[in-house]
C-alpha cells in the first residue's frame, strides 16, 4: 500500500504508553483517510454515554493519502472526537504543514486515549514518539507554545499543533492551532485535548512518502498545480474570501446584528476590497499549496497598532457585521485574541452577537457583563468579550465560553429563540432565510450548523435555484454535496481547489496513482456516502433524530426587513418538504435515521444492527 504510511500511533495518556498499529488496506479503500478514518475511529472507540471531556473520549489525528506527496493542497489533517460543544461527531480539518510532516515522519495518524496526570506534549520524531513534560507550557498562548517547543527541541522546523488557555480551561469553543494562523476549528477539539492534559503535538518528519506511480502522479500534480494558479482560484489568491462581504450584502445574505438582518449599512467599511488596501500585510500559502489564500492583516495605527492576524470571510463577518462592528482594526484584534488564546472565531462571533442582542433587549445587565457595554457596534467590547470568554474570566467570560446554546439555556427568558445554532454549533456566516438551500445543508450537517459539509450555499448564490424558497428537490442537492465534500475531507484536499478538477474520475485517478488502489469516480462517491452515513450513525448513537435537523426559530418566525429580501422567511412546510427530500435521497426513514438496508448496502453492517431503522 502506497500513499499511506500504513501505520498509525496509539497513545495511552493514562498508561503513558505509545504503540504502533497497522493500517489495514480495507480500511484505506473503504474510508479513504481524514474524515473517513475519523468516523470509523469514533464509531469503533466511543460508546454511547461517554462524557466528551472524560478520559474515555478519543482524540484521533488523521491525514489523507496525499499528505507528504506532490499533490497540491494535500497537506491537510483532521482531528476527531466526541464534541463537548455539540455532544455529537466533532472534528476540524486544518491546513498548514503539520499533516505533511506527520506523514513524512511515517505515520498516517495518531489515536490518543486516556488522560495524563500532568500536562504533556507528544513529540513524534520520525519513527519514534515520546510524551514530553509540558508543565512549563501550561497557560501559554498557541503562538508562544509553538515557539517554545521549537526552542526546547532545538529545531525551528518542527511542526506544532497546540491548544491555548481556552483549551486548558475546557471552553467548549476551544480549538487547536498550527502554523499560527491555521486552526482545527469548530466543535471544541481544543477542549478535548485540554481535558487530556495534552498541550500540543509536535512532529518532525524527514522521510519521503512512497507513491504507487511517481512519474504519472508527478505529471498530473504539475498540471493541477498550473490549474490551481488559473482563473478558478483567483478569488482566493487575490482578494481572499473577505470579497464575499460586498457580494453577500448586495444579495441580502450577509448576516448582521445576530442574524436579525441580511445587510449591513457599513459593509463597504469591512469589505475585502477595503481590507486589501488598508490592512492586508502579506498573503501566505500552506505547505504544498499553489493557491496561497491566507491574507494576513496588520493594524498599523490606533489602539490596536501592531496586531497581526489572518482574517478570512467567516471571522470577519462574525466578529464584524454580525456584532454590528465596522472597525477593521477591532475585528483584526478580536481574531488575534481568539487565535492566540485558542478559540474558534465563528463560534465566538455568534456567541458574542447573541449576548449583544440580549444586552440590547435588557436580558443581560451591565452587572451580568461585568461592566462591559455590549451594544451592537462596540468593537472594543467584542475584543474584550472574546478575551474574557477565551480565559473564562468573570461572569461574562465563564458564561459565554460554553457557546451560544448552553449560554441561552442558562439565561432562559426566551433568549434561546435567537441563539443561532443547529445541534449546538454556532451558525456560520450565511443568512438562514435568504440562502435557503444552504440552510438545509447546515441542518443536515453531521457537525451541526456548517457550511463546509455540503457547500450547498453554492447553488443559492449561483442562481441555480430560487434561494428564497424551498422544495423537495433541494434534498438531493444537499446529499450529493455532502458525499462529494466527504471525499474531499477524507483525501484531504483543500476545497478551494474543488473547481480545478474536471470530474470525480480525475480525483479517483489521482488517488490510484498515489496509492495503487484501483478506484473510479463512482466508487469514490460511494465511499463518500459510506463515510457520511458512518458519521451519521455515530450521531444517532448519541440521540440525534429529525427534531435536531431544524434551524433556530428566527428562521421561521421573523421575516427579513432588508429591502433586497423584504418579507423573506422560511416556511415550516417548505422546510419539511426539503428535509423529506433529503432523507429520501439518503435512503433514511422520515425520522432521519439510516435504514438497515442502506447501511448494509454501504458495508456498515455493525451499525445497521446498532442504529439502523
Amino acid at each position: 500500500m502506497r500513499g499511506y504510511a500504513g501505520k498509525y500511533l496509539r497513545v495511552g495518556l493514562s498508561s503513558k504508553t505509545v504503540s504502533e498499529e497497522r493500517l489495514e488496506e480495507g480500511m484505506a479503500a473503504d474510508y479513504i483517510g481524514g474524515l473517513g478514518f475519523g468516523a470509523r475511529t469514533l464509531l469503533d472507540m466511543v460508546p454511547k454515554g461517554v462524557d466528551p471531556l472524560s478520559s474515555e473520549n478519543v482524540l484521533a489525528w488523521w491525514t489523507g493519502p496525499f499528505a507528504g506527496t506532490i499533490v497540491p493542497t494535500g497537506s491537510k489533517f483532521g482531528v476527531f472526537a466526541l464534541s463537548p460543544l455539540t455532544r455529537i461527531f466533532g472534528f476540524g480539518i486544518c491546513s498548514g504543514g503539520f499533516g505533511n510532516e506527520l506523514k513524512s515522519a511515517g505515520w498516517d495518524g495518531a489515536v490518543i486515549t486516556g488522560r495524563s496526570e500532568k500536562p504533556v506534549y507528544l513529540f513524534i520524531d520520525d519513527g519514534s514518539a515520546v510524551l514530553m513534560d509540558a508543565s512549563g507550557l501550561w497557560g501559554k498562548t498557541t503562538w508562544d507554545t509553538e515557539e517554545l517547543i521549537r526552542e526546547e527541541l532545538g529545531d525551528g522546523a518542527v511542526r506544532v499543533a497546540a491548544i491555548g488557555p481556552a483549551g486548558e480551561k475546557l471552553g467548549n469553543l476551544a480549538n487547536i492551532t498550527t502554523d499560527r494562523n491555521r486552526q482545527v476549528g469548530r466543535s471544541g477539539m481544543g477542549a478535548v485535548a485540554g481535558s487530556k492534559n495534552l498541550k500540543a503535538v509536535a512532529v518532525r518528519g524527514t522521510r519521503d512518502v512512497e507513491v504507487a506511480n511517481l512519474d504519472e502522479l508527478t505529471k498530473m500534480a504539475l498540471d493541477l498545480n498550473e490549474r490551481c494558479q488559473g482563473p478558478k482560484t483567483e478569488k482566493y489568491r487575490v482578494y481572499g474570501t473577505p470579497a464575499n462581504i460586498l457580494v453577500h450584502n448586495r444579495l441580502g445574505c450577509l448576516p448582521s446584528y445576530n442574524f436579525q438582518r441580511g445587510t449591513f449599512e457599513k459593509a463597504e467599511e469591512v469589505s475585502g476590497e477595503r481590507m486589501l488596501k488598508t490592512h492586508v500585510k502579506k498573503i501566505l500559502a500552506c505547505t504544498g499549496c499553489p493557491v496561497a489564500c491566507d491574507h494576513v492583516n496588520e493594524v498599523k495605527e490606533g489602539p490596536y497598532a501592531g496586531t497581526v492576524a489572518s482574517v478570512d470571510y467567516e471571522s470577519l463577518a462574525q466578529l464584524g457585521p454580525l456584532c454590528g462592528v465596522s472597525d477593521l482594526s477591532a475585528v483584526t484584534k478580536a481574531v488575534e485574541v481568539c487565535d492566540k488564546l485558542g478559540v474558534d472565531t465563528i463560534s465566538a462571533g455568534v456567541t458574542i452577537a447573541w449576548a449583544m442582542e440580549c444586552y440590547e433587549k435588557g436580558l443581560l445587565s451591565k452587572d451580568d457583563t461585568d461592566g462591559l457595554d455590549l451594544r451592537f457596534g462596540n468593537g472594543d467590547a467584542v475584543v474584550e468579550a472574546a478575551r474574557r470568554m477565551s480565559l473564562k474570566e468573570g461572569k461574562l467570560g465563564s458564561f459565554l465560553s460554553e457557546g451560544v446554546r448552553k449560554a441561552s439555556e442558562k439565561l432562559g427568558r426566551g433568549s434561546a429563540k435567537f441563539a443561532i445554532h443547529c445541534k449546538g454549533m454556532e451558525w456560520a456566516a450565511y443568512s438562514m432565510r435568504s440562502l435557503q438551500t444552504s440552510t438545509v445543508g447546515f441542518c443536515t450537517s453531521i457537525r451541526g450548523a456548517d457550511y463546509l459539509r455540503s457547500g450547498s450555499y453554492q447553488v443559492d448564490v449561483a442562481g441555480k435555484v430560487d434561494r428564497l424558497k424551498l422544495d423537495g428537490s433541494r434534498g438531493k442537492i444537499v446529499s450529493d454535496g455532502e458525499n462529494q465534500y466527504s471525499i474531499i475531507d477524507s483525501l484531504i484536499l483543500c476545497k478551494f481547489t474543488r473547481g480545478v478538477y474536471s470530474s470525480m474520475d480525475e480525483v479517483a485517478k489521482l488517488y490510484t496513482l498515489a496509492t495503487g488502489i484501483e478506484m473510479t469516480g463512482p466508487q469514490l462517491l460511494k465511499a463518500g456516502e459510506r463515510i457520511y452515513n458512518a458519521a451519521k450513525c455515530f450521531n444517532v448513537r448519541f440521540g440525534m433524530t429529525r427534531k435536531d435537523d431544524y434551524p433556530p426559530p428566527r428562521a421561521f418566525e421573523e421575516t427579513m426587513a432588508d429591502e433586497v429580501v423584504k418579507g423573506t422567511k422560511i416556511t415550516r412546510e417548505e422546510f419539511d418538504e426539503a428535509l423529506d427530500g433529503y432523507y429520501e435521497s439518503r435512503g433514511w426513514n422520515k425520522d432521519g435515521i439510516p435504514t438497515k438496508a442502506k447501511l448494509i448496502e454501504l458495508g456498515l453492517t455493525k451499525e445497521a444492527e446498532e442504529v439502523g431503522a
Partner: protein
Amino acid sequence: MPEGVVVEFTGPFREITGRRSTSVDIGSAITLGVLISRLSALYGEEFWRRIVDDEGTGYRADSTMIAVNQRVVNPSGALSQPVKPGDRVVFALSVAGGG
C-alpha cells in the same frame, strides 16, 4: 420613468472600471450581453474577457457572479437575459468559501 440601469462593481470589476458604480442609459430593454458590450466599450476588452466565456454565450460562473435586482443570473443563457430601465445590475466575484 427611469431610463438608465444602475451598475455596481465589486472586487476586480471595481479595479478594472476604477469605480464602485455607474449608470448606463438604455431607454428601453436590452440584453445583458449588450449591456456587457457597452460597458466593455467604456472600460476595455478586459472587462469582457473577465465575464464572458470562450463560447461567448454565458458568463464565467466559476469566477464571476452577476445579479439583476438582487437575483443571481443563471449562467446558462445569461447573456440573452433582458435588462430594463430602472434595473440594478451587480458584477462581483463569485462567492468563495470553505478551505
